[in-house]
């Protein structure tokens, strides 16, 4: 493939409504997520300083936990900016500001000895959307002042979002191979992990998966399940080769997350609600937009 062909693929044209639809979907999800998690996000004000283990940007900037006011304020600011980002209000300012604030708030939440992996993809998607012309359609900015024509400016951010999704799954697959090798898919590693995870939840007084607890008695089930999840992760780049493969891969990856929910009681909302996979499709064609009167009804 020549550099020109790669450039043509990466910077292929797409309607501004596709990128705008992704802004609305990802921004809407982030807004609801932050609103639902406010209490959780500010719960760290009560944590013992010895539990502080900064990661990412927090590690770069902080050596000790913040006072309570400086924990609460960014959470509230992120919530306000999430609304502005979703509505596409002054996107050139609120887009980057929301990306930075969300990155800070969620990095701080992950800086207490436990790194969760449910928000990584959402944050990177918000960063991409916040730093690209994602409010050139279906936004308050457009109502205020129509944007200048920007040919080939709206396809590559969608490609980049899709590349990020694909890369995260490949990384997860490679992590299994790097840490456990092929034995991850040929031994009892997954079965023991599911038993351990459910037992730990039960003994810690939390909800566990009765299905997972029942299935661990059947050892033969787990190598095929582990192998299938590894294949789905490593074959993620196939989703970039056209809508048909994107559909099949997204369905398989969604089923993988549904399986994790069913047998481990771990909820990954971003992929389970389809948002992780939305950049692989023509998101502007969702019936939701007609219902919201953003796109015209078909005649």
């Amino acid at each position, binding site marked *: 493939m020549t550099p020109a062909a790669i450039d043509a693929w*990466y910077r292929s044209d797409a309607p501004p409504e596709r990128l705008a639809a992704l802004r609305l979907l990802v921004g809407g999800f982030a807004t609801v997520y932050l609103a639902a998690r406010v209490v959780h996000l500010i719960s760290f004000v009560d944590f013992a300083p010895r539990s502080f283990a900064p990661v990412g940007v927090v590690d770069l900037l902080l050596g000790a936990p913040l006072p309570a006011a400086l924990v609460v304020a960014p959470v509230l600011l992120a919530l306000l900016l999430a609304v502005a980002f979703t509505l596409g209000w002054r996107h050139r300012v609120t887009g980057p500001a929301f990306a930075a604030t969300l990155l800070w708030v969620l990095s701080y939440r992950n800086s207490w000895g436990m790194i969760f992996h449910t928000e990584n993809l959402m944050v990177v998607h918000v960063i991409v959307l916040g730093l690209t012309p994602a409010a050139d359609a279906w936004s308050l900015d457009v109502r205020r002042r129509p944007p200048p024509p920007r040919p080939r400016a709206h396809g590559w951010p969608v490609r980049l979002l899709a590349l990020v999704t694909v890369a995260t799954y490949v990384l997860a697959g490679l992590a299994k191979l790097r840490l456990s090798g092929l034995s991850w898919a040929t031994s009892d590693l997954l079965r023991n992990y599911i*038993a351990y995870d459910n037992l730990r939840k039960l003994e*810690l*007084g939390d909800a566990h998966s009765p299905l997972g607890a029942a299935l661990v008695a059947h050892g033969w089930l787990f190598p095929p399940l582990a192998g299938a999840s590894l294949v789905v992760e490593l074959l993620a780049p196939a989703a970039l080769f056209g809508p048909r493969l994107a559909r099949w891969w997204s369905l398989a990856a969604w089923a993988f997350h549904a399986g994790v929910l069913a047998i481990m009681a771990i909820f990954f909302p971003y992929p389970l609600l389809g948002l992780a996979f939305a950049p692989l499709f023509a998101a502007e064609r969702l019936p939701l937009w007609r219902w919201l009167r953003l796109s015209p009804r078909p005649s």
Partner: protein
Amino acid sequence: MAPEPDRWRAGGPVHAWALGGLVLALVLSPLCRPPGADSFPFSSYPMFAHGRPTAETLVHHLLAVTADGARRPVPPRLVANDEVLQAAETLRKAIRGGKRPSAALCRSVAARLADDPAWSDVVRLELVSERFDAIAYFAGDTAPLAAPRVRARCKVKRP
């Protein structure tokens, strides 16, 4: 074909390749770190990758003990917050820190629990480490593999 925008404009080719290159380099950067290294948001996603070679499982938990000696686990929201993994990490860290942090955590949870009417029958807390066979556990054998190790004990003081 539509004319190419100014190279440096928002959405133009320089923006596209600079941002795309930077974001993808950061997303893929965990491949340059040792296996299992983790960060946020640029992670290698090692959470399930280790698996577990055996079913033997060490659990640290806080048990609420009533006057008649009955025990039940204190839920994550009273230990740390609503995330069970955060609670597990809080308990692990306190135990690793030794007797003083373990006792301090026990007392702080006891103070939270004292205000909660749902826990009015509880007289003391015990921070305990227990080892189980996780496969046998779900086959009905819920007994720990060895005697529980009590790391801290504290009373629930009510006004």
